[in-house]
Structure formats: structure tokens, C-alpha cells
């Protein structure tokens, strides 16, 4: 795998944001159909841009006796965590970096988002935000372990923690074929990690926005953009881990990567509309008694195949 230098670190954030904005526009267009609104799809597709402008112009607020440092650092860390996780994300045969511990790096950066959302919820000294922040901590207890087992299963199958190596190991057979459980669990945990519906309780409507209940203006823009970046990066990572990276007939590798990422992202967008918010109070048992043993069995199976 080729590693990028200089310009890659500038292009990567812009490319991710552009991809996220496209996805947002597509999602807004679908929303028009659902809402049966009397406006054109094209007008709805422009909504994300209008929203960006609105939030840039909007007044920033702070709340009485807020913990400004924790609050703002949590807000900016969400997009930064997504961006840093994208470091190891390959586009075809190219990645900004392909360190020997790529999988661990990706995992560590996601966990940064875990802390970030909690501090963003704690900061404004508002009960609804606070509850939202704590909800995400509880959510982490449920998605993180199955998520790590899914990552490790792919790494075990390839015998390396290097993302490029994992892609190479799928030359003959995509991992999704013989690690279906790990793939499905990865998708579930990816949504949970990005506090994305149906795992959006930290930003729940019942909490009037939860963690973002007190965020206005550019601060709100930054956190919500960070959330979209997290979703895009999580969808993008499914491609090298399970879907054979840039492999495919006819099209060039970079285009295949984009197509597969878009497909995974479409699934995540669909599931957000499809399911009600899953409360951790109910999900914990499913996660610990079903998903966790299943991923361990999947890892065992892969380890046995590797041995033979």
C-alpha cells in the first residue's frame, strides 16, 4: 500500500467532509419523500448547505456556570477523533498512513470520541445534556467489546494489524464471506460508536437533543459535522476490513472503495430511519449475552482456520 505524505493530510479532511455532505444531501432528499413535503428533491438536497450557513452565522452561547474547557474541548474532539481514525483508511491502494498497528490506532481514536461526547455532555451544566453524556458512557460498555472482537477477528484472519495487510489477505476471499458475524457486529457497533440511529439516545429526542441541547452556532456545526465524519469513517473502514478493499471488476480500486463505502453508508442511513432508538437498559443483555459470545465464537472459528 502506498502511503501519502504532505498533501494527503490536507486532502483527507476535505474529502471526508465532502463525502459526508453528499450523504447528508442524499439523506435530506429521502426525507422529502417521507415527509410528503411540497418541495423539490433538489431544494431539499441544498438543505445541508443552508444549515451550514445558518450555524456559521448563528450566535454562540454559553450557559450559566458552564465548564467551558471540557465542553468546547469535547465538541472539537468529536471531528478530530473521526479525522485521526481516518488516518489508516485506504482509498484503493493508497492511504495517508499504513502503520503496523493500524487497527489499534483506529480503535483508539474511536474511543477518543467516547470521552469527547461525555465531556461535551457534562460541560454545559444542563441536566438534559448531562444525562445524554452519561448515556453514551453506558452505550460504550455495550458496543465496545463486540466491536473490538470484530476488529480482532479480521486481524487474526490476516495475521496482521496493518490495514493494508488485511486488504491483501482478502485477495482470494473477502472476509465478509467467512466472518459474517463479525461483519454484522461491526456494522451495529459502528452505528453505536457514531451515536447514530438507532443508537442515538445520547442525542435523543426525549432529551430534547441531549448532548447537543445547549449547543448553538458554530459549536453545534462542529459537533454534528464530527458525527457525520464518524459515520463516514466507520462505513469506510468496513471496506478494507471485510469487503476486500478496492477489489472488484472493471472499475479502478479507488472507485470501488467509494462505491462500497457508499453502500455501507446507505445501510446506516436506512437503519436510522427504520428503527426506533435502542435504549441501553434493554440492549445491554443482548449485547453481553448474544453479540459478545457470538463474536468470540467467530474469532475462535477464524483462529482455527488460520491454524489449519
Amino acid at each position, binding site marked *: 500500500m502506498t502511503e501519502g505524505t504532505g498533501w494527503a493530510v490536507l486532502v483527507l479532511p476535505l474529502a471526508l467532509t465532502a463525502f459526508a455532505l453528499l450523504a447528508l444531501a442524499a439523506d435530506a432528499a429521502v426525507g422529502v419523500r417521507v415527509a410528503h413535503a411540497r418541495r423539490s428533491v433538489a431544494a431539499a438536497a441544498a438543505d445541508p448547505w443552508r444549515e451550514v450557513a445558518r450555524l456559521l452565522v448563528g450566535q454562540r452561547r454559553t450557559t450559566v456556570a458552564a465548564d467551558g474547557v471540557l465542553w468546547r474541548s469535547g465538541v472539537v474532539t468529536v471531528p478530530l477523533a473521526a479525522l485521526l481514525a481516518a488516518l489508516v483508511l485506504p482509498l484503493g491502494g493508497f492511504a495517508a498512513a499504513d502503520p503496523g498497528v493500524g487497527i489499534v490506532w483506529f480503535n483508539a481514536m474511536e474511543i477518543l470520541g467516547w470521552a469527547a461526547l461525555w465531556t461535551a455532555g457534562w460541560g454545559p451544566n444542563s*441536566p438534559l445534556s448531562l444525562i445524554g453524556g452519561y448515556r453514551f458512557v453506558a452505550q460504550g460498555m455495550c458496543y465496545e467489546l463486540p466491536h473490538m472482537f470484530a476488529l480482532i477477528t479480521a486481524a487474526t484472519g490476516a495475521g496482521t494489524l496493518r490495514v493494508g495487510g488485511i486488504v491483501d489477505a482478502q485477495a482470494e476471499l473477502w472476509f465478509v464471506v467467512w466472518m459474517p458475524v463479525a461483519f454484522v457486529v461491526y456494522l451495529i457497533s459502528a452505528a453505536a460508536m457514531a451515536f447514530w440511529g438507532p443508537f442515538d439516545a445520547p442525542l435523543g429526542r426525549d432529551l430534547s437533543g441531549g448532548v447537543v441541547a445547549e449547543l448553538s452556532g458554530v459549536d453545534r456545526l462542529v459537533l454534528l459535522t464530527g458525527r457525520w465524519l464518524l459515520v463516514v469513517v466507520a462505513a469506510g473502514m468496513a471496506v478494507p476490513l471485510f469487503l476486500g478493499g478496492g477489489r472488484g471488476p472493471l472499475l479502478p480500486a479507488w472507485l470501488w472503495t467509494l462505491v462500497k463505502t457508499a453502500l455501507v453508508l446507505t445501510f446506516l442511513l436506512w437503519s436510522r430511519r427504520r428503527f426506533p432508538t435502542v435504549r441501553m437498559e434493554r440492549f445491554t443483555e443482548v449485547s453481553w449475552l448474544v453479540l459478545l459470545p457470538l463474536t468470540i465464537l467467530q474469532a475462535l472459528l477464524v483462529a482455527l482456520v488460520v491454524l489449519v
Partner: protein
Amino acid sequence: MALNPADADLVVVAGPLTPRFTEPVERIWRQVPRPRAFVRVREHEVGDRLDTASVVLSRGGEHEDGGGEVRNGLVMADRGTDRDGLALDRLHVPLGPLLPNWPAGLVVHTTLQGDVIQHAQVDTPDEVGVGEDFWRWPWWPAGTGEKITSGGVARIRLVELLDALGRLFAVAGWLDVAMRAGVLRDFLLEGAESAWVRRRLLRLITRVRRSRTWRWLTAELGEHRHSVVGDVSTRCSAWLNEMERLLVDLDSIESVPLDGPGSGDRSVPVSPQRVLPELLEGTEFASARLIVASLEPWRSPDEVGSPGGVDD
């Protein structure tokens, strides 16, 4: 609609601003970031007023300023024993009157430890000052000698149920279904043709009934032996069943006697002051919101469909 003042641009007061609401509305207005606009609408002028507001907003102007000072010097949360006898911090969080997807006029004062409701107390409707009852409109023409049809009565009850369902699904974070319920409600109010409504509503009902996720998430929530029937899941199913029955009447032009249809068993007898504290205490925040959304708090069986005044 924005979920919180921080995300809002407009504060719209529709209908009369009763004394009980003046202070909360002013407070919300102060929390809305600039540029912002304050709009008051009476009947039939919604469109015009909102157009003006959007012009004001696009110029970045301020339509009406609240002013006022921000108080500092909050006190720290006090402590109280939890169910295991541990002394823990308690937060006092009032829910309502101005909360999205919350029944109009309801105020529940909760005491939270973590996100569990330890204690709940409900303001009576009189204290809150609920405005005039919108849901009596099929009988508005009563004085004018116009005929009231059972189709019209079914339509308004459907609107009411879709409003309640939309609230329940929204609180549950079921975006798509909540939005579809809202669309149907609005189209019904505008007098959409019944075949169209029937087709879409039946599809919605089937979808909710088939959802195992929905049942899994709402079963065993808000059960109480004496005061209410079933849990959130079964109360939602009861609404769906009632809607299915109402769809049959939608085209009927049979006149309805002026004293309204029989009260029957159309809704759960609920007196919020008595029931809500019992139901909410010991639940966690999200469940509490679902429980409130699964009830029709201002409705008692003798009130259903009656054109007369409310006795409470």
C-alpha cells in the same frame, strides 16, 4: 421544529398567551441564539406571519428583543437517599410546559438521581392554564345549524390519535414513522381524500404492528395494576386498533346527534395527577418520556367526544 432553544431561530406563539405561559415563553425566547424572531399568531394568519419572520431572519434582524439579565449563583444539588438507602445527589428537573413532543399544558416536577426519577409531582391543568380545547372542533358548527357527520367525528379523532402517536414515535426516536404520522395528521386536517388517507394509514398501522423491535423496546413499560391498562406497547396497539375502526366511518355522512357519540371504551381513563407519579417513579428518563407519551392525559372516558364543557 427545533428540539431546544439553542437550535431554534423562531419563537412562535400560536393562540392566546395565558399568564401561566408568559414567563416560560420569555425565558425560552432569551435562550434562542441571534438572529432570531418572535412571532404571535392568531387563527388564519399563520402563513403571513411566518413569511414576515423568515424575511426578518434572512436579513439577520431581530424582530422583538426580550432583554433581561442572566442570573448567576446556582445552588449545588442536594442529597437524598436512593432506593438502596445510599445518600446521592438529587436534581430537580421540571418537564413541561414548553418541551417538544410533550402533551400541551402538562407539567411534571421530577426529582432525578442519575437518570432515574425518584419522585414526580404533577401540576393540575388549572395551575397550568390549558388553552381552549382545539379537539372540540367537529362540534363548532353545532350552533350554526350545519350538519355534523360521523365521518367528520372520525376524522377529528383520527387527527387526535395521529398527533398522540406522532409524539410517542418521536420520543422513541422512530423518525420515519413519526414523520409519516405527522404527515397524515396534517393532510387529514386539510381534508385530504379518504381513500388516500386509508391506504397510507393502513400501511403505517401494519408497519408498527409488525415491528418486533418496537414491541421489545416498549413492552413492560408503564404498567400499573390499578390505574392504567397494559403497558406502552399495548396502549399503542389499542390506538392502532381504534384508528383501524375509525377508518371504516371516515366516509360516513350520517348525522351525529348534538350530544355527540357515546363515550364507550375509547380511551384509557387517566387522571394525570393520580396516575403519572405512580407510573413514573423508579423509571429511567427515556422510559418516563415514553410512558407519558403513551397516555392521553387530559382525557377521561366521559369526556371523549362530548361537545360540552370539561368538568375538571
